């Protein structure tokens, strides 16, 4: 029962790290869903990214190559989903679930030889002056590059969806694919691009777990992070800023509950363990009380003949 032993500075710093994997995956899924496609395979793409990134980082000795490979691995798996849903016009929910199961199996197979190996370390950025600011320096300016990449991606996606022509077209495809098609936009092509982007982001999120947060490879190590990312997108009303908030909340409460346990708080452990899920959903549902809604064509199959 010693609140004093929990350092807010370190807590906030860990929050940024804990939030990054789900943030990356959720941002990718956000773009996919804004294009009108529901891909439930996030978990599968994350774990595939985790092993691809890990294997390449170990073999090349470079975490940077690892992350590139992770994005590639996630995108390749997403390509399978794109082929099924955009070309073969298969049901998106079923295809997405299949993708998760496939990804989990594939990753265990690929990871056979990588259990118990240490990956090359990823350096924390030491930003000279900024990193020396008391409190803020440790919280904001002492992380690895991927944390900042995630934050930059939030801003970029927000700006793209809201202000750019590309974002407008993407949203048009997601809201009403028939109208977008009538205007001459290549609906299928745009959706495939969005799906690939989503796969790459999920792969990066997975590699963040296997290369930085843990860091090692074990089967099934994403442990449901992909499903949390999926839920975040919905509860965040398909808005990039709220995805960031949700990811921070989830990461924050996850870290906080471990800290509360360590500090000997008299709350039963079972309640602490469920708190990240409860609090994140509660806050985002309350925030979603405004007029925002899902993209109108979400999950619907498009064929140019209709």
């Amino acid at each position, binding site marked *: 029962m010693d609140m004093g032993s929990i350092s807010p500075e370190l807590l906030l710093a860990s929050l940024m790290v804990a939030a990054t994997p789900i943030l990356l995956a959720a941002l990718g899924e956000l773009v996919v869903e804004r294009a009108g496609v529901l891909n439930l395979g996030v978990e599968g793409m994350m774990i595939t990214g985790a092993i691809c990134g890990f294997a390449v980082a170990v073999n090349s000795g470079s975490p940077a190559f690892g992350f590139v490979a992770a994005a590639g691995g996630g995108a390749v798996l997403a390509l399978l989903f794109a082929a099924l849903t955009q070309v073969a016009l298969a049901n998106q929910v079923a295809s997405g679930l299949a993708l998760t199961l496939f990804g989990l199996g594939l990753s265990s197979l690929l990871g056979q030889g990588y259990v*118990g190996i240490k990956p090359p*370390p990823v350096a924390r950025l030491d930003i000279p002056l900024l990193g020396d600011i008391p409190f803020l320096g440790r919280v904001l300016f002492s992380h690895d590059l991927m944390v900042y990449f995630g934050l930059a991606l939030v801003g970029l996606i927000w700006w793209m969806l809201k202000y750019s022509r590309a974002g407008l077209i993407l949203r048009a495809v997601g809201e009403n694919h028939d109208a977008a098609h009538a205007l001459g936009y290549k609906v299928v092509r745009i959706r495939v691009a969005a799906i690939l982007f989503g796969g790459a982001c999920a792969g990066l999120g997975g590699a963040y777990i296997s290369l930085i*947060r843990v860091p090692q490879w*074990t*089967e099934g*190590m994403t442990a449901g992070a992909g499903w949390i990312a999926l839920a975040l997108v919905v509860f965040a009303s398909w808005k990039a800023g709220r995805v960031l908030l949700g990811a921070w909340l989830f990461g924050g409460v996850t870290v906080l509950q471990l*800290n509360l346990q360590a*500090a*000997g708080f008299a709350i039963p*452990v079972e309640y602490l363990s469920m708190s990240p899920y409860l609090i994140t959903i509660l806050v985002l549902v309350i925030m979603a009380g405004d007029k925002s809604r899902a993209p109108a064509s979400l999950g619907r199959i498009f064929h140019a003949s209709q």
Partner: protein
Amino acid sequence: MKLTHLLTSAALALGLATGAVAQDTTKVGFIYVGPIGDGGWTYEHDKGRLAIEEHFGDQVETVYQESVPEGADAERAITQMALQGADLIFTTSFGFMEPTVAVAEKFPNVKFEHATGYKTLPNLSTYSARFYEGRAVQGHIAGKMTKSNIVGYIASFPIPEVIRGINAAYLHAKKVNPEIEFKIIWAYTWFDPAKEADAATALIEQGADVILQHTDSTAPQAAAEKAGDVITFGQASDMAEYKPLPRVSSIIDNWAPYYIARTQAVMDGTWESQQVWQGIDKGMVKIGEITDAVPADVRDEALALKQAMAEGEYHPFTGPINRQDGSAWLAEGEVADDGTLLGMDFYVEGISGQIPN
């Protein structure tokens, strides 16, 4: 109709085939709770399995199934192994106790061995190691080496074995360092690297400079290495890849001699149901190399402690010891009996916090 007929005869033929093989060799099965590459608990059990293969050569055939969840699914996995013609099946996690009992009742001719449990049948033995002896050594080193006087402990499930480990480590840390404080996180998993890493990080951020773990992966070692200035101990396996720092020593579970002896007993037809609980003396618990990061005098003391336990001169739970609520448990010089230890559900005096239900 024809298809069913075909399938039945195929199944019959298969059954006959496996039956024929089973007569020549002894088939030994293993049910693991984690992947064999976890680098800890399951890894050591699998080393025991490989030792059987090496020792008996063509006389045995071993099979295993890894990452079997504790619960209903375990019963299916064990049943399947028994149906495949295994003569002896080791189930290697506490949570497999009820499923093992259920399957053992259905297959009276198959011998079962359940690790760390307490229920036996005429064809079901239990075996475990006195890990708490190793915990005593860890506690001693932890108490001597900590600068912050805070020891972080990643616990798995609130079962007697885990509680015993916490108590043994605490008592021996307290003995050499009265200022010591234990911070305990219940992870509610045997194996979840991301969660174990987060738990280790949270403990380190709260000032712990020693991390003890009762979970099976090497993730806490990696987290400690990343944080720097933190020492850890290998759990269940040597975890030597983290030497000399953060891992300064380890508890190694050495199952091979027991597994070979029991397989031999099945071959000879001398297998009998028993309850085995061996410690440092019989070599089932080993203390991994104490690295140079530990000062020489502390290492010598730790080795002396180990020696005293091996020779039976010293028991880690020797009174006076009080329970957490201050009531007396063991009087001066009194030694805990195995029954109390096997059912331990309380902290000793000085540990703060409560054991979850």
